[in-house]
């Protein structure tokens, strides 16, 4: 096999301490490490990268979790280096980039580099191509150049890219998606200019939606509520009577109580993170928001994680672990 692709996912093993409430196990504290796994305007980042990898003609990819930007290779019999690959495309699931991977592969081959890493004006993007000779058994490959001793070649990327490390960066990508600044389109029907509604979403007659905005699948917006501008309410949420969501994001399975105002914030279940200060607030104690129990079992502390659906037959990946997992495309 000449080329294999690996997508490294954030490690979700344990909660990071909450900012304001150390005694509270906050889902948002884990969002800090797993923000890239959450749906963005109904889109899943992993699915977007999977489609790009499929465009290279690959029929499978490997998934693994990774912490501290280091990819541990050669220790697991399932990892691609034990499968005789010559080159490895490594995508750290922490950025959205409208990148032509085929062009990057050509660049890597032409320059005869050992390692090629994509970068833009803000630095490395977490997309690399490695020659297999770089990887020796049991070694950590660092996905950022600063920490590696291997000579790396930079692939200059000039297209749209957004790092999605924090909820604030996620919200910037939401705004770009809603306004058409990037190629990511909201997953739903465009009912009015820059207003997208997902399947089976319910919008009360007196509810107001101000574009640009997105309302996800099966989300209920009750009487008198206002969504937008620059709001994304992901799937299976409830925005109750008279509540306003503007310049804010609501993550899946979140119920917002009546009469509230969410502005420049990210709401996830019973918690809210202020996008300006990063402060996390427990809203559940005040009965202001809560997590809606989902019908299907969900892993990793309420985060609606990853779901790769292959075109032929469904291959579900729901619980990233430290092991390598091959997924057919």
């Amino acid at each position, binding site marked *: 096999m000449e080329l294999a692709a690996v997508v490294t996912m954030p490690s979700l093993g344990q909660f990071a301490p909450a900012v304001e*409430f150390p005694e509270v196990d906050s889902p948002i504290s884990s969002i800090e490490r797993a923000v890239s796994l959450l749906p963005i305007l109904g889109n899943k980042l992993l699915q977007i990268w999977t489609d790009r990898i499929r465009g290279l003609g690959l029929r499978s990819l490997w998934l693994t979790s990774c912490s501290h930007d280091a990819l541990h290779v050669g220790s697991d019999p399932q990892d691609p280096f034990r499968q005789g690959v010559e080159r490895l495309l490594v995508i750290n699931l922490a950025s959205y980039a409208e990148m032509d991977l085929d062009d990057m592969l050509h660049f890597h081959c032409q320059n005869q580099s050992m390692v090629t890493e994509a970068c833009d004006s803000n630095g490395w993007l977490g997309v690399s191509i490695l020659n297999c000779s770089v990887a020796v058994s049991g070694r950590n490959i660092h996905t950022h150049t600063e920490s590696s001793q291997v000579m790396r070649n930079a692939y200059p990327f000039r297209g749209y890219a957004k790092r999605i490390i924090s909820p604030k960066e996620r919200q910037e990508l939401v705004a770009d998606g809603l306004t058409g600044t990037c190629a990511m389109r909201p997953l739903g029907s465009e009912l009015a200019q820059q207003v997208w509604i997902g399947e089976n979403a319910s919008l009360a007659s007196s509810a107001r939606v101000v574009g640009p905005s997105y309302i996800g699948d099966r989300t209920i917006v009750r009487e008198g509520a206002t969504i937008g501008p620059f709001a994304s309410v992901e799937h299976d949420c409830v925005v109750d009577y008279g509540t306003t969501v503007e310049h804010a994001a609501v993550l899946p399975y979140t119920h917002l109580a009546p009469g509230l105002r969410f502005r420049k*914030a990210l709401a996830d279940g019973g918690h809210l993170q202020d996008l300006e200060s990063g402060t996390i607030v427990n809203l559940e104690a005040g009965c*202001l928001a809560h997590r809606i129990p989902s019908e299907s079992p969900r892993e990793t502390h309420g985060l609606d994680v990853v779901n790769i659906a292959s075109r032929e037959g469904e291959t579900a990946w729901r619980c990233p672990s430290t092991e390598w997992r091959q997924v057919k495309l």
Partner: protein
Amino acid sequence: MSVDRIVLPFPFGSKSVHRRAFRKQLRHALCFSASPVIVDLSGHRTLDCRDINLLLDCAAQVTGRDSQLIFLVGSLAIRLVLDVVRISSLVPVLDAIEQAPDYGRIMREGPR
């Protein structure tokens, strides 16, 4: 110019009898004080349902009166909750008691 202020500590998580006493104190202060009445929420970082109901009640008490009410918060978390429940659009919210003399300016410019 210094202004005499009445500062009432907010009865976080206390029994209903204490809440009733607080309501009575607040009503009395709003009736008879010419200076701003400050409800002190500092020292706490969470608000439960009863706290929020009591704060909404405080905001309702001042409606239609000439009296002045200020919420003094000690943490950004409390301020954010007050923003979410829209109380901060009804009653001025200050981070520190030293800001209280600016009350006249706040009233001119409107609550944050």
